[in-house]
């Protein structure tokens, strides 16, 4: 299933945050959204998943979601959004219960996603017992449990320290390589974008417009740390963004 953004514009009151954004998120690819802070990239993600309604334009699903898909558009949040009173197992079963999946059937799915995120030993742990990286892996496992057609990842690694981030990036690459998934991935970290993105959408500062779309052909598995070609791309992205990032940083926030 593809996602198409058709001339999306969005304003909060008088403040225009997004202007005329049209692009495709093709099936099986990871599309990264980068841009200076406040450029509306997180807003765009909320629009894609239907958590907010765009002022103008439409978000379209092209094609049907794969079979067995319970929640086509599934988020992975920056702050993990795990229920602190439920165990790892309970947090995942939460999103299955409403689809009538309980008991042994749920246990099978949960065991599978926990194995894929290397969390099998922690199914009874409470979120407060887990490190940040593990919490985010639980959130990813929860997202995988509903077999999403598109994963909407809102700065999923931004709350983590740089070492954990590095490890989780490897995990994401491994997950994608085993079974490719479609994702819209919002980040302000260009290293993440060039590491995980098949396509990188650079947004300008507010009101956010598409400045450039960079395609990276290199397979995810080959993108090792310190790869010169990736570093060139990263530098190119940074050159494009530097001035805007500085200007955005000096703006007053009143959104």
């Amino acid at each position, binding site marked *: 299933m593809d996602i198409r953004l058709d001339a999306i514009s969005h304003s909060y009151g008088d403040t225009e945050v997004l202007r005329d954004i049209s692009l495709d998120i093709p099936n099986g690819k990871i599309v990264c959204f980068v841009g200076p802070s406040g450029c509306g990239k997180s807003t765009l993600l909320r629009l894609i998943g239907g958590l907010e309604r765009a002022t103008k334009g439409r978000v379209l699903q092209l094609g049907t979601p794969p079979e067995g898909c319970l929640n086509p558009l599934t988020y992975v949040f920056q702050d993990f959004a795990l229920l602190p009173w439920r165990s790892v197992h309970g947090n995942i079963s939460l999103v299955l219960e*409403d689809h009538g999946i309980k008991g042994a059937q749920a246990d099978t799915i949960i065991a599978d996603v926990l194995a894929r995120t290397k969390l099998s030993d922690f199914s009874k742990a409470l979120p407060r017992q887990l490190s940040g990286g593990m919490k985010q892996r639980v959130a990813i496992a929860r997202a995988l449990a509903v077999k999403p057609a598109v994963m909407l990842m809102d700065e999923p690694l931004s709350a983590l320290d740089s070492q954990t981030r590095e490890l989780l990036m490897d995990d994401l690459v491994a997950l994608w390589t085993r079974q490719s998934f479609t994702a819209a991935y919002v980040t302000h970290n260009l290293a993440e974008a060039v590491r995980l993105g098949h396509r990188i959408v650079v947004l300008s500062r507010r009101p956010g417009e598409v400045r450039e779309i960079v395609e990276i052909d290199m397979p995810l598995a080959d993108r090792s740390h310190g790869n010169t070609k990736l570093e060139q791309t990263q530098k190119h992205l940074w050159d494009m963004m530097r001035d805007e990032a500085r200007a955005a940083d000096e703006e007053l926030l009143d959104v």
Partner: protein
Amino acid sequence: MSDATAPTQPIEVRFRGGGFAPKARRWVGLFVFVFLIGITEIGTRQGWISSLTLPKPSDVLATFGELWESGLLFKHLIPSLSRLAVGAAIGASIGIAVGIMIGLFSYVRAGMVPLVAAIFPIPKIALLPLFVIWFGIDEASKYALIAFGTFTPTVVATYGAVDNVDRSLIRMGQSFGLSWLSIVRKIVLPGAMPGILSGLRISLAIAIILLVAAEMLGAEYGIGAYILEAGSLYDLERLFAGVVILSLLGVILSTVIGFIERRLLGWRA
């Protein structure tokens, strides 16, 4: 930074962290009780506390023993407990329900918050005659008074607790397509539980206060009636025996809530 003159002695960095983290200290509470009662006992025995000021704790205990032996204790305690249980249960459950509605629906909030603010400061005891007219002199008016008194603090605590539920968790629930009812049942309610329970501590203490008030009017048996009778005879031993029962009731209720908190809120720790 450094002085030009002779090198100074190194100074150890002064510790200035610590504190602001209360820990469980088991027997201190008991010790405070024992100490105060002990002082009173010694004072009344030696005479520097006159028997008009305070009764001897041992005499209060003896009165308590008589109450127990004559079977009067339960004759007074059982109607009081049932009034407390029924009244507080009605008040707290309606309070929690209304509080959750206020937390969830804008119109209920707009309509009810000013009303609750208007009801809250009314001394419910002043309304007792009104309740007698509405519900009769029997148990119903006592239930109503206690229920009414527990209702307002429960509402305020509950909607405050619902307001404090992490919005990102609700957003998460919506993003996974959870039904409205599931979000309320599995995210809002457990998230509001800490606030609801700490509100109940206050509501139940108020319920005990109102229990006595209700029983001071038209009740043959009950802790309140017992205290009122003792008070009008200036029988301080019996008065204090009654008061001690109320205090014990308060401590027991608070312990029960503490127990429920440990069971339900173990995830916080």
